[in-house]
């Protein structure tokens, strides 16, 4: 519909021109402002020369040059702009102010986590002497603050926050009221016992659900909300590993330089830098994932793309070797844990490629690769389980073994049904969204099992 007023029509055209220009990555907003000033000046000069606004606009745009050429010239001059950069708190405006505030809160909470881990020392709990206490409570120093960050960021209502806080209080109670026994009575009385270690390992898994609910911020009931949390968790892991590597380089250099002047920093490193850094890094990594979400490609799906074919090849070769050599699985104490880890890795590969797959895309070669991976992992695990089942009574039901068995069942059920859903999808008899829903629906199961291990196992096994 034509606008009668030429001035308004001109503004409309300039708006459209500006929005086209903004889409060019090499041309930043300030450049667009500069070019717009030029365009307006040119239009004004041309209208003074007798052209009407519409003609003047067309001539001015033409003189500005083709947008592709312009974009290319800017890209040549500013080649750095073609790399997506994480620019924190630059420029002005509400968006930048929001980003700055976000960063301040995140780093404040990171500092709080670093302090929190040292607070028990004020009450006489030494990191070396009371290792068991620290191991049991490690997640409680960090995850409440992370949950707090998301509660603040998503603006959760007081009721939800209350429930989340209650979950943490319950976790703290279960981690600390049980009278855990030391591992081997008589040998260094402060090494954590079996059920104590299980609590330490499973508490974070259970509490991740709480973090997830805060992260999803009211969207936890949606598949998309939970899927976002899955994406977040993958990126968080990668960022944390990267930060840890950087921290390793830092401490290595620190140790070397201080050694050269004869100062031993190991004590400082052990009791301050490592625990405080490890705690704070969780929050910094989370903030990074949030801040760069729309800036940089997700890494977890890229890595799964890279490793899915490799893991599939290894597993298929393993199964083939098993069949041709006729060897049985060596039943050792830790074989179940090894196969649990295998299933965890396979599940991770599946989960993070599902999280990045375009649901509407037709089945492709990579989807078949996924199915091969999952099915071969299931077969390998079945072989191991069968071998173990035959001799489980001989070994006895220790807490570790029961926990490992339970984990195996949890993962096996997930992967088996995933394989069925994937095959249905590949056969054209089901939507890919079913698989997404299955995976996101399954998240509470991990937390539930972990909670069972934390709450039921210690009394059931006599706190050994």
């Amino acid at each position, binding site marked *: 519909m034509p606008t009668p007023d030429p001035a308004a029509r001109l503004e409309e055209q300039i708006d459209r021109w500006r929005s086209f220009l903004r889409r060019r990555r090499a041309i930043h907003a300030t450049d667009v402002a500069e070019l717009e000033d030029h365009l307006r000046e*040119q239009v004004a000069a041309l209208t003074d020369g007798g052209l009407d606004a519409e003609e003047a606009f067309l001539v001015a745009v033409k003189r500005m040059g083709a947008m592709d050429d312009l974009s290319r*010239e800017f890209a040549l001059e500013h080649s750095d702009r073609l790399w997506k950069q994480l620019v924190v708190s630059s420029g002005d405006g509400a968006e930048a102010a929001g980003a700055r505030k976000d960063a301040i809160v995140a780093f404040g909470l990171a500092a709080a986590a670093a302090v929190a881990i040292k607070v028990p020392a004020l009450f006489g709990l030494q990191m070396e002497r009371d290792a068991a206490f620290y191991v049991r409570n490690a997640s409680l120093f960090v995850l409440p603050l992370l949950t707090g960050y998301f509660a603040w960021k998503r603006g959760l209502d007081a009721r939800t926050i209350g429930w989340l806080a209650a979950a943490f209080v319950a976790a703290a109670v279960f981690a600390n009221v049980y009278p855990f026994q030391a591992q081997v009575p008589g040998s260094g009385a402060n090494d954590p016992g079996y059920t104590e270690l299980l609590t330490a390992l499973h508490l974070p898994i259970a509490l991740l659900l709480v973090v997830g609910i805060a992260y999803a911020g009211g969207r936890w009931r949606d598949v998309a909300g939970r899927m976002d949390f899955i994406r977040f968790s993958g990126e968080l892991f990668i960022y944390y590993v990267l930060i840890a590597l950087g921290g390793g380089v830092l401490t290595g250099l620190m140790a070397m330089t201080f050694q050269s002047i004869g100062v031993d920093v190991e004590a400082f490193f052990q009791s301050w830098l490592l625990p405080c850094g490890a705690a704070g890094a969780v929050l910094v990594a989370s903030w990074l994932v949030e801040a760069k979400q729309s800036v940089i490609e997700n890494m977890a799906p890229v890595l799964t793309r890279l490793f899915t074919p490799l893991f599939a090849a290894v597993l298929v070769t393993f199964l083939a070797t098993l069949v041709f050599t006729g060897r049985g699985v060596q039943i050792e104490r830790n074989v179940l844990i090894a196969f649990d880890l295998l299933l965890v890795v396979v599940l991770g590969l599946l989960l993070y490629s599902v999280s990045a797959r375009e649901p509407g895309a037709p089945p492709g070669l990579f989807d078949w690769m996924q199915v091969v991976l999952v099915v071969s992992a299931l077969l390998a695990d079945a072989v191991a389980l069968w071998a173990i089942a035959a001799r489980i009574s001989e070994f006895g039901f220790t807490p570790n073994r029961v926990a490992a068995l339970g984990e195996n069942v949890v993962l096996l059920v997930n992967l088996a049904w995933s394989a069925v859903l994937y095959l249905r999808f590949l056969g054209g008899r089901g939507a890919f969204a079913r698989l997404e829903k299955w995976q996101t629906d399954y998240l509470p199961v991990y937390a539930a099992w972990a909670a069972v291990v934390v709450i039921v196992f210690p009394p059931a096994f006599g706190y050994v």
Partner: protein
Amino acid sequence: MEINKDLIAASSTPIVLAILAEEDSYGYAILQRVQELSGGRMEWTDGMLYPVLHRLERHGFVEARWETAENGRRRKYYSITSAGREQLAEEHRQWEAVDATLRSLWSALRDSLPAAGAAGSGPLPQGA
């Protein structure tokens, strides 16, 4: 008359620096000045001036600042720096050398090639 792209690209640095040496200016006014000085013979595509200005800024030859123009719009002004003046002096020397060489050539050619025309400009007459 259309001047080829390479020549425009090569001459853009001294031209822009020299204009900014006269006084601080902004994109549109710089282009106006080029037009005025060349009698309309140097046709720059407007948008291409800006990457040139940004390159000069990156090299530290010019400095930019945002100001509010008399019409109330935000406008980016450029001014030459002392490094820019040195660069301009250097460009000046180089262009004079090129110019002197070409002048000698033009006058030598004028004697031997009648087709080059009196002023040494304009297209060659056909069949010369």
